[in-house]
């Protein structure tokens, strides 16, 4: 188990190197550079040359990339070319906002989705199930930003109960959480429902019922315990995705999070900032998936056995 964890963490390093190379390369390929966002009306070409030198733009990309990687391997994410502030601090100062938003959306989504999914599975085939399906379909097909805009108009303008921007109180959480959580809960509900239905068909349930095990125990010990895994996978994936920061929701609600930081870094061609943000996000992503895998192992002794016996069964989905 430990070996597996360490192996996964070690794989993180080449992945991060690849990711940073791709981002760095892509942004360099993009027309324009950070200098172009700083040029004012009165500058002449000489001024621009001087600016280029100051930001190292006159040296070839490999040189700059090499410098960046050198710092990175020493654990230094560098400073933003725009503000001069260390990227790690800038990211961390905004990350709690994204974290709170993601976690709230996730909690609300899960709290709604799992009971709903169980309910739908229990009444599969009836009108309740179809209503739930309709609801989840809606959640899956509604563009999050559209919902966000509609909520903004409805709750901040028509009925003035929630603030339109970020003001630090609990009130400003409601609308973004709904916008974010709606599609999240839709996916998790579907996953829960199908996982439970899948388990319901298994033979061991029939056996348990035939044996006379009370229904509640059947549900608890057999259905839920086995349905857990795909549900957790889905939740893990969703967590990872939202922690990356939803740039679109943050744009609509002026949320000071990390999602919009990335969009900003790209428009300003702030290469170090973009790389740094992506690296931090990718690291979080991989770490969360690792945690999910570990939870699998803790929850399901079959999977634990696979790891500890040395035979590594790779997840194929």
């Amino acid at each position, binding site marked *: 188990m430990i070996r597996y964890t360490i192996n996964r963490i070690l*794989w993180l390093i*080449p*992945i991060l190197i*690849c*990711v940073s190379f*791709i*981002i760095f390369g*892509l*942004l360099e*390929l*993009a*027309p324009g550079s950070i200098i172009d966002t700083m040029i004012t009306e009165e500058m002449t070409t000489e001024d621009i040359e001087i600016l280029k030198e100051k930001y190292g733009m006159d040296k070839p990309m490999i040189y700059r990339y090499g410098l960046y990687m050198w710092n990175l391997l020493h654990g230094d994410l560098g400073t933003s070319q725009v503000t001069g502030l260390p990227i790690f601090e800038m990211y961390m100062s905004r990350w709690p906002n994204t974290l709170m938003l993601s976690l709230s959306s996730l909690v609300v989504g899960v709290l709604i989705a799992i009971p709903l999914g169980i309910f739908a599975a229990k009444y*599969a*085939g009836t009108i309740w199930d179809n209503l739930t*399906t309709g609801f989840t*379909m*809606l959640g*899956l*097909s*509604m*563009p*999050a*930003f*559209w919902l966000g*805009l*509609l909520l*903004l*108009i409805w709750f901040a*303008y028509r009925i003035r109960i929630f603030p339109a921007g970020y003001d630090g109180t609990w009130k400003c959480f409601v609308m973004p959480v709904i916008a974010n959580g709606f599609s999240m809960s839709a996916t998790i509900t579907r996953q829960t429902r199908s996982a439970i239905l899948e388990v319901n068909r298994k033979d061991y349930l029939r056996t348990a019922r035939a044996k006379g095990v009370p229904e509640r125990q059947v549900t608890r010990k057999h259905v839920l315990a086995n349905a857990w895994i795909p549900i957790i996978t889905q939740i893990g994936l969703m967590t990872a995705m939202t922690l*990356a920061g939803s*740039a*679109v929701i943050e*744009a609509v609600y002026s949320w000071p999070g990390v999602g919009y930081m*990335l*969009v900003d870094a*790209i428009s300003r061609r702030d290469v170090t900032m*973009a790389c740094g943000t*992506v690296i931090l*996000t*990718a690291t979080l*992503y*991989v770490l969360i998936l690792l945690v999910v895998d570990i939870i699998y192992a803790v929850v399901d002794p079959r999977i634990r056995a696979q790891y500890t016996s040395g035979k590594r069964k*790779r997840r*194929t*989905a």
Partner: protein
Amino acid sequence: MRKSKSATLISKQYRRKGFLIEVWLRLRTNRGAVFGLAVLALFILIMVYTFIFMTPADVSKIDSKSRYLPPSSAHPFGTDDMGRDLFVRVLYGTRYSLAIAFGAVGIGAVIGTFFGSIAGYYGGWTDQIIMRITDVLHSLPGILLGMVIVTILGAGLQTLMIAIGFTVISGFVRMARASVLSVKTSEFVESARAIGMSEFRIVFSQVLPNSISPLIVTFTARMATSVLAAAGLSFLGFGVPVPLPEWGALISAGRNYLTTAPHLTLFPGIFIMLMAFSCALLGDGLRDALDPKLNK
């Protein structure tokens, strides 16, 4: 069982045709899937109509006297901030969403399935490398990749398709690899080897057809998410160039007028929802229809 499997190998042609008909019959009973299919067909019809009867000029005709008009009989969806009829623009925009849904996902599907099949079939180092590259692709946030690609290549439909295509590749790689892995050790392949088929033919004629069903399911699921992703990118400003009326771009253009002219954001949004909804319904229906063991 063994006997029937070899028999089906020989009568592959017949089986396949019968299989498709079976699938269609099962699909027809699923009202949701039929609805989805009907809507998609409607969108395709609309797109054809706009190809024949509309020119780009109709779509961007500016009329300074009729700006921000609410929906009326002359303008079913109202007009936008430049006096352009929103109904015509939304209909014209169908082509972009269809192009993304089919084209972008198609690109991703072809590339992803190809690499996934190779990874699954050959295993070993090929498998490791391909899977790690997929991990890298997967950990790049989709929006970021899309934004950067659009920034480099310039706004446009092809660019948007490439950007979205990239984001769906990893799903197809995983799916193809899983399918291939599960079929690799089956008797189909053993018998094919026994007959003396070349490796290449084995992969493409035996392995792939059996992975059709997860492929279709992944394809339709991705269609829905791609339409939404494209709308999201356009919303952020990284989509098709102005004044092309892609639905996400229309929402973005209308977002400043939410309080005064909400119809500008409403109608494109409804269309996006309809499209994603139909793709999802169709996907679900296909998944159920292709899997005979699943009973409602």
